[in-house]
């Protein structure tokens, strides 16, 4: 089974490990991510005002290409791409006036025919977590995982429709299928500071500190995410957090596909863990997840 796949710009470069592991795991699970031809960046922001259409031209073109290449679904791994494509598709589906403006401008015929899916959603709804569980070769036994959702994978809930707002469970169910132990922590749907990482660094540092402290205090060994921006903020801010709070103890932040890959027995040395600022290998070894 092939699923059309949109990697996005960050997954081709700085979040290559999210992409590599996702593709490798799909083959082990019996499906293939078939990369869209001639894709461009999605623009990384969905316009929140009603009179700004130009930033939707990029994602609309991607969706129209998906349809024209004979597909009715599009899978993403990155939460930002997922949010932008999904919300743009909702506009194309439901808002006649804005659709006409955008499709006239890019000279394409598109009416929201493509269903945008996140990889996690694909695993849950198309493959099934029960099937995933059967395919696990090396269960993540004893590993306590803080499943960090962040914002864009969930909100706005009515438009995204992946899970509930305050207490989602898709990520925890995923970790349970891998044999790991998801821990509950109060900051799982809070914001990491997002693009404030290039404007108000204090916001990104404080938000990341609160999330990481919450995860650590709840007993987590590792934090997982689906978003390269969350991964960056949560990992990269830790030296700064330590400066202002010497009692803070660091915690590794990895992509969900990296843990999936370990559970499917892909070699740890090929998963790009060396690119993490806070090295996940010591805790993964201590917990017996890797040799």
């Amino acid at each position, binding site marked *: 089974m092939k699923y059309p796949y949109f990697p*996005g*710009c*960050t997954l081709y*470069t*700085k*979040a290559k490990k999210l992409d590599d592991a996702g593709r490798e795991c799909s083959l082990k699970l019996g499906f293939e991510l078939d990369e869209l031809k001639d894709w461009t*960046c999605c*623009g*990384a*922001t969905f*316009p*929140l*005002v*009603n*009179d*700004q259409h*130009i*930033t939707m031209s990029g994602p609309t073109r991607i969706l129209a290409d998906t349809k024209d290449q004979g597909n009715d679904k599009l899978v993403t791994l*990155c939460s*930002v791409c997922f949010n932008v494509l999904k919300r743009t598709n909702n506009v194309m589906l439901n808002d006649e006036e804005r659709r006409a403006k955008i499709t006239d401008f890019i000279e394409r015929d598109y009416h929201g025919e493509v269903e945008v899916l996140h990889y996690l959603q694909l695993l849950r709804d198309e493959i099934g977590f029960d099937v995933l569980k059967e395919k696990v070769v090396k269960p993540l036994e004893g590993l306590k995982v803080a499943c960090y959702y962040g*914002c864009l994978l969930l*909100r*706005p*809930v009515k438009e995204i429709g992946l899970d509930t*707002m*305050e207490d989602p469970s898709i990520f925890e169910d995923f970790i349970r299928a891998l044999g790991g132990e998801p821990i509950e922590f109060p900051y799982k*749907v*809070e*914001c990491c*500071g*997002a*693009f*404030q*990482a*290039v*404007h*108000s660094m*204090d*916001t990104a540092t*404080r*938000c990341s500190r*609160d999330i990481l402290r919450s995860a650590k205090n709840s007993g987590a060994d590792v934090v997982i995410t689906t978003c*390269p*921006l969350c991964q*960056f903020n949560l990992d*990269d801010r830790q030296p700064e957090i330590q400066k202002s709070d010497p009692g803070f103890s660091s915690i590794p932040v990895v992509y969900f596909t990296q843990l999936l890959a370990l559970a499917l027995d892909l070699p740890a040395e090929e998963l790009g863990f060396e690119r993490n600022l806070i090295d996940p290998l010591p805790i993964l070894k201590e917990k017996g997840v890797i040799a």
Partner: protein
Amino acid sequence: MKTVISRSQVKGDFVSKVAEISGENFFNCYQCGNCSAGCPSVDEMDLLPSQVVRYLQLGLEEEVKSCKSMWVCASCMMCHARCPKGVDISKIMEALRVLRLREVGAEGHIDVTDFSDDYLARAPQIAMISGYRKFLPL
């Protein structure tokens, strides 16, 4: 400080424009403060999210236009998710930002030369692209 509230400001062009492009009705807000309690950026804000909405209800254009809050909003949409009246403040904050960025001669709020090469080498593209879109004139 004396604050003058006038009908002309409450019904003024600025407030109407913010309402129009955000698509939000400020008068749905009854000031419960859930948005401000859940906002991750309040520590860096001068006006709380609920105060921004209150000032818009009262037509206090200058106070809202010059607030820092719109620039430290991370568009995380937690305010909207927790609003009992369904007001989406992330849209209001975006409307305030774009109106400032569309002014003639508007200046950007980030400068790529402020970042070290080391930071740029580490920061993901989505951070830079969304930052440019949120903080620079189109």
